[in-house]
């Protein structure tokens, strides 16, 4: 049995939405702990959309974004991506390192801070998912790339493309003080893992 987002029923969809909420909520809580500041989060928006719309995420194909990608092994296999625009990345780095740079270039130290942010956010997202499902989920060390949104998003889009014509992503807006930061999580299970995931959540037999 192959499941694709194109043919999920509304209950399965709601469950995936709820995973997104809990995962992203957990991630933002971890971020607050990391920077030792109160971080507010809006209710994440969970969207399933066609490839033609994908690149409109984050303001267009040519918008420069930071993508953090890691692979997942264990009971559930696949990939996970956290993506945010360059400006938001700068805000996060500033918060974390206590700096106030406005440069959109990142030095090695700042890149490593960004990777760590990605690591913590995706790690706590996956922890929440593992807790919910009782599945063993082992994340890899994250990789980071800064480039056009279309190019970065081609990586998860291709994975989704193997099973259907749409992608699932969760948009999270969080803020610390007056600094608003938007970021998107993309959970990309391998073809066979959709079934594992939905079974573990009790949505399919």
């Amino acid at each position, binding site marked *: 049995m192959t499941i694709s987002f194109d043919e999920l029923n509304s209950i399965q969809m709601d469950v995936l939405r709820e995973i997104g909420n809990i995962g992203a909520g957990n991630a933002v809580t971890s971020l607050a702990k990391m920077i030792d500041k109160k971080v507010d989060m809006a209710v994440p928006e969970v969207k399933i959309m066609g490839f033609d719309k994908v690149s409109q995420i984050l303001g267009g194909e040519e918008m420069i974004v930071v993508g953090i990608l890691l692979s997942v092994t264990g009971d559930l296999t696949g990939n996970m991506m956290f993506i945010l625009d360059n400006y938001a990345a700068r805000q996060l780095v500033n918060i974390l390192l206590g700096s106030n740079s406005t440069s959109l270039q990142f030095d090695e130290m700042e890149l490593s801070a960004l990777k760590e942010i990605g690591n913590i956010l995706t790690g706590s997202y996956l922890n929440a998912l593992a807790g919910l499902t009782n599945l063993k989920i082992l994340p890899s060390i994250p990789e980071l790339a800064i480039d056009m949104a279309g190019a970065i*998003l081609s990586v998860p*889009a291709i994975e989704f*493309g193997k099973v259907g014509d749409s992608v699932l992503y969760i948009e999270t807006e969080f803020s610390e003080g007056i600094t608003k930061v938007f970021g998107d999580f993309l959970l990309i299970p391998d073809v066979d893992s959709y079934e594992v995931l939905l079974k573990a959540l009790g949505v399919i037999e």
Partner: protein
Amino acid sequence: MDIEIVKVGMADLKSAQHPCMLTTLGLGSCVGVALYDSTTKIVGLAHVMLPSSEQAKNNSNRAKFADTAIVQLVEDMIKLGARKDRITAKLAGGAQMFTFSQGSDLMRIGYRNVVASKEKLRELNIPIISEDTGGNYGRTIEIYSDDGRLIVKTIGSGTKQL
């Protein structure tokens, strides 16, 4: 001269008559296959995501796969008046956006897209005039119907003309 600008999305293909410019923005591991018939100045552009429709469980979108997209694009161009024996190709994209230490399948997809596109073009006897493939960066490409030039733009690696 005002030219028509046609945008080609992800897993999408378009063909058009002169005068026009076809563009696809932010190619990553996907491959842009740009076809041109210099006599009729008919152009075609496909934004291919995956190498083969044969391994796919859902292959209804022909534009998504290198093998079916190129065949479809050639057919569309012929319908507009192009002749197959005059069509030439230029390729761009197929980057590896992330460098993972473990070489998982996900990481080689750009390369495999390029190989599959070349194979299909060879099978159809369509010569590849030039290419700008591989690397680890995204590309925006534009093909112009007046002379078939392909402009490749990047964020940190400059602009090229193929």
